[in-house]
């Protein structure tokens, strides 16, 4: 009984934190808050976490060996992808409520940042799999789910490319963005849990890192890395959407 209450409380808190992060991310992308300070913080966090990730002492495990350091790169990339895709979906919802060219650009650029981070996550994961599992790609539920996510966002780009009228493109792609996110992304988290037999760390009896991280040193590097990569995703989106705004302004002239 006590355990369920705790579980519900943790879910509610993480939901609130996620929503706050989405709202904060939008404020950063639209340059409403932050100024230059958060970009300095991003650089410090990313450089610091990467350097520490390579240098600190990690638990010695058979097979995994030094490749456990991928935790500081691979996992934060997926976290950042999910965050920036959530931001993209939120912009799509805002667009449907109140259409404007700006919201369409923001949602499109956020989705593109998500795709870049997803591809980086696939690449780092594949590299890790080659040295620990012996193959670049295995038919693991987690890996299949990640591939499906990339296919969905590839389809989103194809859809945008095949619509000519700008307003129609903005509206239809916003609809597909929301529909795809609602239909497929939650399942990407559920599917690996119920299909069993996954080799991926943290799945079906394969311990995640928290089991080996007895003195919490890995955590001290992991969490800053997550925050750094998420901020980096927002930064990337901000720069690319500013470029798109300038192009929009040029086209209007």
């Amino acid at each position: 009984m006590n355990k369920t209450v705790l579980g519900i409380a943790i879910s509610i808190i993480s939901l609130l934190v996620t929503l706050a992060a989405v709202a904060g991310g939008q404020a950063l992308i639209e340059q409403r808050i932050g100024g230059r300070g958060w970009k300095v913080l991003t650089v410090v966090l990313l450089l610091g976490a990467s350097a520490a990730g390579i240098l600190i002492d990690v638990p010695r495990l058979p097979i995994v060996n030094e490749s456990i350091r991928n935790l500081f790169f691979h996992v934060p990339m997926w976290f950042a992808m999910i965050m920036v895709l959530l931001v993209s979906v939120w912009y799509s919802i805002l667009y449907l409520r109140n259409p404007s060219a700006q919201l369409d650009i923001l949602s499109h650029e956020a989705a593109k940042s998500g795709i870049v981070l997803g591809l980086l996550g696939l690449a780092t994961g594949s590299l890790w799999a080659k040295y620990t599992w012996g193959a670049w790609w295995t038919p693991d539920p987690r890996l299949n789910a990640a591939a499906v996510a990339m296919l969905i966002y590839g389809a989103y780009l194809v859809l945008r490319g095949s619509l000519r009228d700008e307003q129609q493109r903005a509206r239809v792609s916003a609809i597909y963005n929301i529909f795809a996110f609602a239909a497929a992304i939650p399942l990407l988290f559920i599917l690996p849990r119920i299909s069993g037999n996954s080799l991926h760390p943290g799945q079906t009896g394969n311990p995640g890192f928290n089991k080996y991280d007895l003195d919490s040193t890995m955590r001290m590097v992991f969490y800053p890395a997550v925050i750094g990569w998420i901020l980096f995703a927002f930064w990337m989106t901000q720069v690319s959407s500013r470029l798109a705004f300038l192009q929009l302004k040029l086209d209007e002239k």
Partner: protein
Amino acid sequence: MPLLREISTLLAKDFRLEWRQRAALGGLLLYVGSTVFVCFLSFSLRGGTPPPPAWNALLWVILLFAAINAVAKGFMQESPGQRLYYYTLVRPQAIILAKMLYNALLLVAVGLLGLFLYTVFLGNPIQDAPLFVGNLLLGSVGFATTLTLVSGIAAKAGGNGATLMAVLGFPLMVPMLLLLIKVSKNALDGLDRSVSQQSLLTLLALNMLVGAVSYLLFPFLWRG
């Protein structure tokens, strides 16, 4: 309740249109029949029926492509003028619900017929038939709910609608297909039903989620 009346009128209209243009329906049935027959011919080269995993995979491939073909023409065969006419008469929610219901009924019929032909030609290795058929029905309804909104989106692009529909629809259907194939494998092997319970519940929840999201989003698509 007016919404229900609008839905039933639209549903009757869809059925009447389908019946008047029997070519499309006949084409669909012929498509299922000929793919099953091609499978039969190729497996008969090596002594009759395929092994159960191949049997399962082929059945779902046939059903998936039949579903894409069946649903694709739903919104695309209507002209912009026709759409405007409906827009003035009924609310968009009625249109999407009627279309989903119609596609679900069509795909259930195609699925059952496909399964019948398939078992006639390629043998019947199913050990738990009620579970298999129930899973097939759930799958047909799931295909219909997912593909209806996708076909509406693809119809907006004009021209290469059918290709676009496959591109947009396949990745969305992969998670659903993985669950369906898993449950139908369990039914083929006659495993205990408790093994499939969680997947079935997830499928049901997924169907309801997709239906609800389509219901919410379609009015925005329709407005254009």
